[in-house]
């Protein structure tokens, strides 16, 4: 396989991955949020290396403002 063709496949794969993220984010926001929390929590445990904690912070969703002052888990309807 030529380098040009390999590059094309890489771009298509990236576009497909980005599309999956867009669909999850736009149509399943609560599921995406729970998924991000589930992925981030193990990385943020005490004793993890710095790079892992940084990755966990990056993965963790930002707190939302729901007006209920409860941390904004978005799961109370």
């Amino acid at each position: 396989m030529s380098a040009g063709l390999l590059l094309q496949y890489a771009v298509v794969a990236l576009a497909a991955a980005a599309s999956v993220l867009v669909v999850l984010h736009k149509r399943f926001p609560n599921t995406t949020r729970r998924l991000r929390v589930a992925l981030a929590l193990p990385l943020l445990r005490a004793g993890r290396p710095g790079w892992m904690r940084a990755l966990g912070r990056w993965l963790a969703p930002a707190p939302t403002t729901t007006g209920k002052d409860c941390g904004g888990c978005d799961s109370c309807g």
Partner: protein
Amino acid sequence: MNAASELARVALVGNPNCGKTALFNLLTGSRQKVANYAGVTVERKEGRLRTPGGRPVAVLDLPGAYSLNAASLDEAVTRDLIRGFYPGEPAPDLLVCVVDATNLRLHLRFVLEVRGLGRPMVVALNMMDAARRRGIEIDVDTLARELGVPVVETVAVRRDGARDLLAQLDAIGDAAQQPRQALPGTGDPGVEPGAALHAETRRLLALAVAMPRRTAAVDDALDRWLLHPVFGLLALALVMFLVFQAVYAWATPLMDAIEAATGWLGATVGATLPAGPLRGLLVDGVIAGLGGVVVFLPQILILFAFILALEESGYLPRAAFLLDRGMAAAGLSGRSFIPLLSSFACAVPGIMSTRSIQDPRDRLATILVAPLMTCSARLPVYALLIGAFIPQRAVGWFNLQGLVLFSLYVAAILSALAVAWVMKRWRRDRGEHPLLLELPSYRLPHLRDVAIGLWERALIFLKRVGGIILALTILLWVLLNVPAGVGIEDTLAGRIGRALAVLFEPLGFDWRISIALIPTMAAREVMVSSLATVYAVAAANDDAASDVLRGMIAQDWSVATGIALLAWFIYAPQCISTLATIRRETHSWKQTAFATGYLFGLAYLVAFVAYRIALAMGLG
């Protein structure tokens, strides 16, 4: 606010129909940002301006409210925001309370309520030109003195109509905080706050306003016809009918231009890039798919231009009044009209706005039938199918394609009424609830406000095209090309489509339509881009000449299939956001499952019957 160079935050508040948004458009022009308030689907509009004195001002156009005792979600947002209690929104530095100068009897009550909060405020007497034409004399100085706040005249539809208001904005922070003013009589035993408010309004009117008659002569003359139980309904049907005719009669040249541009772009990209998956994705996926959806933008904008013009003219509340009797007979109340009307744009805000319906029975009935209203996302699908299967010819004075589109909208409305009626019979409920509605004065729609509204609609549509529709088009293209080197029917998408086709075969849907129905659950317009992608990939694989989608499906499908798919889209709840909103608003999986089940059931049944009848008529 101390420094003149510091950004001041100003909020426009007032009753619905006071010309608040027109004033907002005049002040901020195109420097607007439209979003939602955090956590709710209530539109948040913020714009920027610089006063003649050079002060930068952020202007917030708050949802219209009749009272600070909120009866709806919109009113609750306004109440909380002007009191500084809304999360994430700082309290405004100045409240501009906009009132309709021709309807002070109603609007002054809200001014008095807002004044009671004790926040800095200015009263903008809007539509002063209309008030003068009707011979209404307002003593502005007396009103300002009695209210204890500055009062300025504005004419939102005139270029320099906000000059006095801008001068007031320059003076933000110069005046001391407005003292909280209690109404005379409040606190007295036996005097209700509402009665005190009403008495004070009457006192102010007697002191500062001379009104020759309570309503405009032209309004009375028009209402005699437009609110007539027979002629009014005929006029409403005629207006809606003409709107759908215009959608088809006017959009064709622009649609042809977009189609030609899409074709040129596809050919250019195809000729520029080397053969390979990236060229296939761009040409057959992105350009063919998105081009197939964008082509319907002119039709959507023409439809919304009419809806915005009708809204501005003051006709829509009259339509609600006219339809109230029929809606009550079907088990809905007049209060259902606005949520159902909102659902013509999108069912999600329509369902959210049912919060203004206090009766739980009426609210649930409205929520369950709202997805039947023809949302704007269905329009590209209808336009595609009508363009492919209905000939472009005149029937008498009318365009046949426009007639079919009109009948699809009517079919959806009648279906919603029928479903509500069945639900009412099921509950054995014979109760009715009265409708209380403000009928604003008629006015000519202002071109700038319609243009700004259309610009917002176009941006919303294009953002959907560039977001969820683009993402799903890419994913479908990938599924249509994996594994590589096999025929399209043996790809992942082909196999899924063929499995689903067993279920949809009785409706005349082949595997291509069946596969396109899956991503359409995310957004209905995706049906068009999905079909465009499926056919573009198939055409590329077969080395066949590329054609516009309408031509391809007209050649490939029978008329009966086209009719069955149209019938399917009237009913099918192909929108996951709508179903999620029903769950959130009803707090019930049972009601959500019921809505999903009855809508899919109706869609299947009606599409099946339509297909069989069309076959029997020889349209197979």
